[in-house]
């Protein structure tokens, strides 16, 4: 039983109730925004959060005032989210706030407020007690024009039962223990509103409808709302170092990163935690930001983490080469990928600055900065006056420390030397750029090799254990094209060879013509070997007939006919 003075405020965002990553991310932002008003918030379900209203309402000058501020904050967030994601429904679209005694009534009030504001701009909430007056207009400069009616419904203290009595019984349908069956039954029995239900004696309802009926009756009577299960706000375990004045050299930043990493490790260790990954964020004075996640698994020392920061700062310059090929072409005399680093990086910072004036400075610093072998590379990374302003280490996926042990057998130990090399390349090209092959099961040559980004768990997609009938026997092809190449296979008369559903060939293949190449004489062939896979799954089902073709130049090919098209999947070269 909730005490009558237990006032609960509920924020309901109808746009964020759908499951999905984007909605969850936006809702997390909403929660953060609400935490600014009240630190202890319960996320009831996707798109709905609740918190005790008494304290914050007193502080902000009333429940309506507080609700108005929260709506404004969320609406502002929604505008930003929409601008960033281009999504139709932002976080703030149609959000409603309800205040009542108890969670259940407050949730209903929030939904009603949201629906009312969405339905019409002029129409106020059905209870006529909606705080529709825009008294707190000062708090909402950034609210979109749609909220002429403030979607706020405050049920005054002590009048929650009255409010509930008018609600239809259908609102019980999504409650725990009460299903749509019971709601339908109540409707058929003539109990249209919660008031009708609450008017019945509790004992009779319990004996007729069992536990579900008892729960429904208690909710309808304004009782039985569970207390809020608020969680304290997540502790901020990230550590930040600001550089004032901004640091133009990489080396001092790396040095500071070591101390910073130690601080982060201490903070985690004091709570018995470790992180699976750590995000390193560096913000330069010209507003650019470099973010990268690094595998941590509780194994990185502070020095190792500082190394990651160095690689990231080094690598920050490399992708710029990919985008800005112009300067590299312009200076053929000092061609090569290395010295182009400095040029395009500055081109990003400001097109006006990237000019011949900068090019003068380049050759001098090209030498040491991009030698790439030395650990230093302390050359000026950014334009004059620019530098790293903020370095931040954010632990990602915080988990309890359970220790780490290698498997007794069968695990190849990746030496530090190899791991460093791989991570250096990952720093330059991204996490997915360095792969380790894992041999697994499957019928195709491409299926049998799975590629796992370095640092992640090595597990084949298909188990290698069971037999895979339908594999092509014999030596494996040395060249496996990531994307099969479409070719034309014709018979002596120049007609494309076809394969029927019963694997009958129209004629013996005689010529193989790849796009843009002269046709090759087929001197030997075998097949078709049919393969019908995963017919039970329409998305993954494949029916193919495979061939081995030998061409006049001594090379052999693995070809397949799928949907009437000839594809070269691999080459025996």
């Amino acid at each position, binding site marked *: 039983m909730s005490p009558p003075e237990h006032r609960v405020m509920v924020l309901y965002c109808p746009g964020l109730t759908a499951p999905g990553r984007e909605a969850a991310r936006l809702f997390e932002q909403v929660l953060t925004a609400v935490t600014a008003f009240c630190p202890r918030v319960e996320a009831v379900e996707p798109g709905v959060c609740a918190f005790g209203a008494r304290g914050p309402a007193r502080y902000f000058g009333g429940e309506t005032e507080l609700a108005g501020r929260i709506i404004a904050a969320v609406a502002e967030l929604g505008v930003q989210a929409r601008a960033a994601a281009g999504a139709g429904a932002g976080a703030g679209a149609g959000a409603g706030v309800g205040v009542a005694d108890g969670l259940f009534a407050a949730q209903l009030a929030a939904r009603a407020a949201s629906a009312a504001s969405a339905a019409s701009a002029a129409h106020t909430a059905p209870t006529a007690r909606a705080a529709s007056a825009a008294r707190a207009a000062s708090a909402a400069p950034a609210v979109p024009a749609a909220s002429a009616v403030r979607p706020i419904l405050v049920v005054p203290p002590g009048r929650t039962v009255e409010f509930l009595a008018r609600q239809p019984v259908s609102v019980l349908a999504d409650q725990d223990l009460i299903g749509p069956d019971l709601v339908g039954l109540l409707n058929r029995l003539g109990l249209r509103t919660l008031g009708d239900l609450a008017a019945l004696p509790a004992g009779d309802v319990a004996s007729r409808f069992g536990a579900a009926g008892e729960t429904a009756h208690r909710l309808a009577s304004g009782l039985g709302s569970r207390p809020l299960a608020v969680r304290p706000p997540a502790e901020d375990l990230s550590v930040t170092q600001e550089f004032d004045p901004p640091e133009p050299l990489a080396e001092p930043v790396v040095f500071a990163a070591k101390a910073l990493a130690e601080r982060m490790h201490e903070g985690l260790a004091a709570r018995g935690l470790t992180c699976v990954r750590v995000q390193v964020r560096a913000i330069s004075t010209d507003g650019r930001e470099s973010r990268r996640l690094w595998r941590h698994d509780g194994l990185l020392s502070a020095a190792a983490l500082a190394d990651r920061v160095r690689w990231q700062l080094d690598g920050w310059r*490399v992708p710029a*080469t*990919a985008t800005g*090929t112009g300067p*590299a072409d312009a200076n053929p005399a000092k*061609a*090569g*990928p*290395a010295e*182009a680093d400095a040029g395009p990086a500055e081109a990003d910072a400001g097109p006006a600055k990237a000019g011949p004036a900068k090019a003068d400075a380049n050759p001098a610093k090209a030498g040491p900065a*991009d030698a*790439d*072998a030395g650990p230093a590379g302390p050359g000026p990374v950014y334009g004059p006056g620019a530098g790293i302003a903020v370095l931040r280490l954010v632990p990602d996926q915080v988990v309890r420390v359970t220790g780490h042990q290698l498997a007794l057998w069968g695990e*190849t130990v990746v*030496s530090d*030397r*190899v*791991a*460093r*090399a*791989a991570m*250096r*390349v990952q720093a*330059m*090209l991204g996490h997915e*750029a*360095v*792969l*380790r*092959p*894992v*041999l697994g099961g499957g019928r195709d*040559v491409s299926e*049998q*090799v799975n*590629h796992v980004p370095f640092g992640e768990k*090595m597990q084949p997609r298909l188990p290698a254990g069971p037999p895979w009938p339908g594999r092509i*026997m*014999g*030596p*494996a*092809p*040395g*060249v*496996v*094209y*990531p994307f099969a190449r479409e070719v034309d296979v014709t018979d002596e008369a120049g007609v494309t060879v076809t394969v029927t559903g019963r694997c009958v060939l129209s004629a*013996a293949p005689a010529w193989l013509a790849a796009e843009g190449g002269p046709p090759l004489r087929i001197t*030997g*062939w*075998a097949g078709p070997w049919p393969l019908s896979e995963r017919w039970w799954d329409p998305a993954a089902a494949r029916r193919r007939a495979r061939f*081995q073709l*030998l061409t006049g130049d*001594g*090379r*052999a090919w693995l070809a397949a006919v799928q949907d009437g098209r000839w594809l070269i999947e*691999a*080459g*025996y*070269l």
Partner: protein
Amino acid sequence: MAARPAGHGRLQVSEAPATTSAGTSASSAAPPTPPVLPVPPVLPVPPVLPVPPVLPVLPVSQVPPALPVLPGLRELLPGGGLARGAVVTVAEFGLLALALAAGASAAGAWCGIAGVPEAGVLAAAGLGLDAERTLLVPDPGPAWAQVAASLLDGCELVLLRPPARAPAQVRQRLEATLRRGRGVLLVVGDWPGAQVRLRVLTQGWTGLGDGHGRLRACCAQVMADGRGEAAVPRTRWLWLPAEDGRVTAAEPIDIAAAGFPAARHLRAVSG
């Protein structure tokens, strides 16, 4: 060295009493050597290289000079292996390049493969490559030279196909990195100044008929030339791979069977 054949002979005569006399004579003639047991003169080649996958970390001075290759490829390379610090080129990507990497990997080396998204890891694994000790960088992008240099820090062998023709400056910088480390750079394509250049001259697959059979083995003629020790071109016929999946030397009779009527002639020309 002089005492060794003598001890050998005595041991073969009688075992138990001879050990003492051999020991005394050896100690007087030369530094003491452990008694040598009679060994059959020719060891049968083990079918698959049973090398433990442990790479001892040695200081640079003790690093063996060359990375081992598959037995069938030894004759093509000066010193019978891939000299550390050297650039070896293969004209086109294919089984030959994978076989070169596989030999080193089977002996415990880490291999990096950069710029070859279509590398058939399964075929390489069949030749001996240990997939667990392989790093793939399918698309190194415009910074490929830096990627290769970084990989060379960790891997003994880096198989690289540069996406573009390498300017001399980039090549020299990469070669300097190579000499500092102890790796081998295996380049697919052209690389001026490479120590060894390998190319497949002709190849022919066996086992495939006209509508029947399946590919079984490939007979290939491989030529090696280069600079220094490798300056004299060498040409060998190889099974790449043989029916049992290994890389072995092909006999003239095999070559004729593989459908090369001109094999004898080619062999005579190549010397």
